């Protein structure tokens, strides 16, 4: 799992590349938290375009990112979600809480 990103005009975009499971989640959560804290964006966009696999570890990651963004009065978007991760998100019902859009 590789996370790259940039912050432009208060919008922090993070690109997830690879597989997000329990093995990779801890480092991903750390990277995410550090970047939100460094940039304090008004909007955080998780770009899942290159996410090749995700299990329920990804749900915990999204919920944590959402919590952190709410703490700083910002909002979270999850975009370009491929079919397999989207099925996991649909099954979890998290789409009722978070702004999510598919590929």
């Amino acid at each position: 799992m590789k996370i790259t990103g940039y912050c432009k005009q208060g919008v922090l975009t993070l690109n997830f590349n690879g597989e997000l499971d329990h093995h990779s989640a801890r480092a991903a959560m750390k990277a995410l938290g550090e970047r939100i804290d460094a940039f304090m964006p008004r909007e955080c966009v998780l770009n899942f375009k290159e996410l090749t696999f995700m299990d329920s570890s990804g749900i915990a990651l999204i919920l944590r990112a959402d919590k952190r963004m709410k703490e700083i009065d910002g909002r979270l978007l999850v975009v370009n979600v491929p079919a397999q991760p989207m099925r996991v998100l649909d099954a979890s019902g998290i789409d009722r809480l978070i702004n999510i859009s598919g590929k």
Partner: protein
Amino acid sequence: MAVANYTKIEFLGKSANESFARSAAACFAAQLDPTLEELGDLKTAVSEAVTNCIVHAYPNEIGRIQMKCRIMGDDTFEVSIKDWGCGIEDIKKAMEPLFTTGGEDRSGMGFSIMECFMDTVKVKSKVGKGTTVTMKKKIARKKSR
């Protein structure tokens, strides 16, 4: 139902083996010619079950995990994941959505996702002895699709 083919793999409960286990199960299931969606569902369910072993069954040690995959004569794929860890005290509670003892890192959605993506999920567990999760999914043959 007769077993048409099977494989048995044992590995250490290291988180690096989560991707190994789900990929191995998907490779074995490939002979049933599943759709990408069916393969994704199998991988996700196996990933959840193996993660449960690593996080919950062996919280303070790296234990053994055994995965058996069976292809039944009626094109049902069966996978069972077994550990010799601490066991589950209250299986009903453990399977409730959002219930977790794993803290903020875990979502508590593992069993819900297994149940959602597989046709059946059965859990056998004995405290102090270990847990076996057996899941089945019927794979539709392409010619009938």
